[in-house]
């Protein structure tokens, strides 16, 4: 799956875009976020405050219960601040 990070999520994780295999046991966005927290200090810090992390799957805003598959484009970003 393709994962994108924007704004301070990109800065804290140090990653703007990556391709990963769907981790074992992960079936939804909440599961993916929990897995992210265990990837290291940068990821743990980026995903600490789940209330401000937004997620889009295939470019649609979704909540934690949304399913994820290996073919999805998943993006993590803070609340948008507009133009």
């Amino acid at each position, binding site marked *: 799956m393709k994962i*994108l990070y*924007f*704004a*301070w999520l990109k800065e804290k994780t140090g990653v703007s875009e990556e391709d990963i295999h769907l981790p074992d046991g992960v079936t939804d966005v909440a599961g993916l976020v929990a897995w992210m927290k265990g990837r290291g200090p940068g990821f743990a810090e980026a995903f600490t405050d789940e209330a401000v992390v937004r997620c*889009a799957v295939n*470019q649609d805003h979704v909540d934690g219960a949304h399913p994820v598959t290996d073919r999805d484009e998943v*993006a993590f*970003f*803070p*609340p*948008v*601040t*507009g*133009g």
Partner: protein
Amino acid sequence: MIRVQEHDFDPGAEIAQLTVGNTAIGGVCSFVGLVRDFAGDGAVHAMTLEHYPGMTERQLEAIAAEARRRWPLDATLVIHRYGRLEPGDRIVLVACASAHRDAAFEACRFLMDWLKTKAPFWKKEESADGARWVEAKASDDEATRKWAENKDG
């Protein structure tokens, strides 16, 4: 039409282009957004807009289509820049052409309210204290909510 681009644009040429060949249009309401030299309590030296290529265009297309459903519009145009911008630089142009000026004004304002709150852009401001990511504002969310409540109006 929707464009998300790094380079500047020419509002006069864009507005003129919007109405070419359609003499049923009574007017074009447009809004040009500029980078201000202040935000909240402090001076801003520059800002950088980051966006989600692909999702941005999809969302701008969708909101422009929504505006065309709500009001009798002959044409809509949204141009939004990204990248590093300095005070006085143009950020955004919204233009709505209609036979009726009320429709043009209301659609343009609807699109601007949406863009300021819902478009997938993230803003980093540079001030004397360094650079920081801007947090979403409650007042802008209210402006968007107002339109949601008026959905059937």
